[in-house]
């Protein structure tokens, strides 16, 4: 080997070898749950940024208490109003869990038989043999009980069932039997209560209507993400029914979650029934119970629901074996739209996945 060739080989080896020895700057994950939840909080904002969500409010509850709460980003981008734990959002299909609670209250009171045909209450689904249980478990399509298919419109037929078994309009039943009972003072049964029709206004006292208007004046603005840019969008239809329409905050939903765990709203037996996967006619479990999803995860069983509208999204994820619940509300579709949550696996959501990793 010539001197110049040897020098070239040595120089190349030194240059390459020196660069290979870069230090690893990583750190070990913290061990205890509280530290991991604090770490999870930092994940939430990072995931929010990647999902292009303008504003997001979050809470984690444990043992009936709020363990952590926060707001990220902006509830109103134009007015620079920050998102906070008391920011009201349209919670979209999380409303279905309230419908479940109302129906299970009827079940407890003996005013509802879940196996009665839905056509006894409404003609909305035609002359189907499907029962209330089938509609509540998203298994009402032919033949009833044979397959799970998430369908918010069919679930909406349960509005009439709630009205039939409670003897009240849906929103009045929701207000009196859950929202008022739990002092969910920042929750409103329908955005149309900002300027209600006379027959709707007649359902509530003047003080309640004033409170509803004050809450609705603070509701997060609706946004869509187009070509990577946030644009003001449209609110969902202003009414309310069994499928969607409730306005709430993560703080109020934390109260709701605590009440569910304390069996304040529904008996232990009925709540267990709602949280147990429906068994299909082929004896396989569906991913859906009665108004709730239920599945095994790395952190034990998960009881959960999500909400999705083009301008709002939500997630309520309970991990009973860890005694914790995650509640997320957003003013865009970013919590749900990119993930096939309707199929029944919450771990397709990076937000859920990070939470499960934090508490497992």
């Amino acid at each position, binding site marked *: 080997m010539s001197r110049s060739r040897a020098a070239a080989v040595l120089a190349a080896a030194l240059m390459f070898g020196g660069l290979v020895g870069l230090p690893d700057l990583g750190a070990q*994950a913290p061990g205890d749950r509280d530290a991991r939840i604090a770490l999870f909080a930092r994940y939430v904002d990072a995931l929010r940024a990647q999902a292009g969500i303008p504003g997001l409010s979050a809470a984690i509850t444990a043992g009936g208490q709020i363990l952590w709460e926060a707001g990220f980003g902006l509830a109103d981008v134009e007015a620079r109003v920050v998102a906070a734990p008391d920011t009201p959002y349209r919670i979209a299909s999380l409303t279905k869990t309230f419908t479940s609670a109302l129906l299970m209250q009827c079940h407890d009171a003996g005013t509802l038989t879940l196996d009665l045909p839905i056509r006894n209450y409404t003609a909305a689904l035609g002359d189907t043999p499907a029962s209330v249980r089938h509609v509540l478990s998203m298994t009402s399509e032919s033949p009833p009980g044979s397959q799970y298919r998430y369908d918010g419109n069919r679930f909406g037929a349960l509005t009439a069932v709630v009205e039939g078994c409670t003897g009240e309009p849906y929103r009045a039943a929701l207000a009196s039997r859950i929202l008022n009972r739990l002092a969910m003072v920042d929750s409103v049964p329908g955005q149309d209560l900002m300027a209600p029709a006379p027959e709707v206004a007649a359902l509530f006292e003047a003080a309640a209507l004033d409170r509803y208007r004050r809450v609705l004046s603070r509701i997060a603005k609706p946004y869509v993400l187009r070509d990577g840019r946030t644009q003001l969008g449209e609110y969902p239809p202003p009414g309310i029914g069994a499928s969607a329409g409730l306005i709430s905050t993560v703080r109020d939903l934390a109260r709701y979650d605590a009440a569910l765990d304390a069996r304040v709203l529904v008996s232990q037996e009925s709540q267990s029934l709602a949280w147990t996967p429906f068994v299909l006619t082929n004896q396989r479990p569906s991913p859906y119970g009665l108004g709730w999803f239920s599945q095994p995860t790395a952190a034990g069983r998960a009881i959960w629901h999500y909400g999705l509208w083009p301008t709002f999204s939500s997630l309520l994820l309970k991990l009973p074996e860890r005694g914790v619940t995650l509640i997320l509300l957003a003013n865009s579709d970013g919590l749900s739209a990119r993930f096939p949550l309707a199929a029944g696996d919450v771990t397709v959501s*990076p937000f859920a996945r990070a939470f499960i990793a934090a508490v497992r």
Partner: protein
Amino acid sequence: MTRRLAISLLLAFGAFIPARAEADWFVRPLVGVSLMTDHGYVDLEQTAGKSKAFFGAAVGWQPNALGLEVEFAAAPGFFRDTGDLVVEGALSSVMGNVTWVLPRPGASARLRAYVSGGAGVIRVSLRDRLEAFASRSTLIAGNAGGGIAVRVTPRIHINGDARYFKSQFGDHDQGGFGEEFVSFARVSGGIVFRF
């Protein structure tokens, strides 16, 4: 069919056989930065769009205007910024490239330009502090670009290189935001040691 393919490969290989082997082989250590990065992985430290340091080396054979090289490059912090949430966020690539140099080696020009392109694999290694999005994926990828080489001595050249890498779309990133993919431009410099 197999015989025709074998003959074609033999002819293609024959095109690179030099009439006279002199300083045909080279080693090219490189350092550089990525630009215009984009990817489909969970991006906990918002690294998409940010420049990241690369290092690597290429080994090649350049008997005449056309040559071949195998290049290895790595960016240990491709998916990492502060390191608060991402423990490991490395990207590495191995590419087999064809290069076309003008003027061809052997000519007396002090400055040479080249274009280069090829295919290979990009390896992504991700691990976050909660271990929620740990991922090891290998994606088929291509790259194309070019550069210049300035002769310092007959055996040592200084090199500047710019190229664009794009991977295939891989599996849907489980628990992520979409399909796994990576694309980025890379600007690098190095010293070419010819043997």
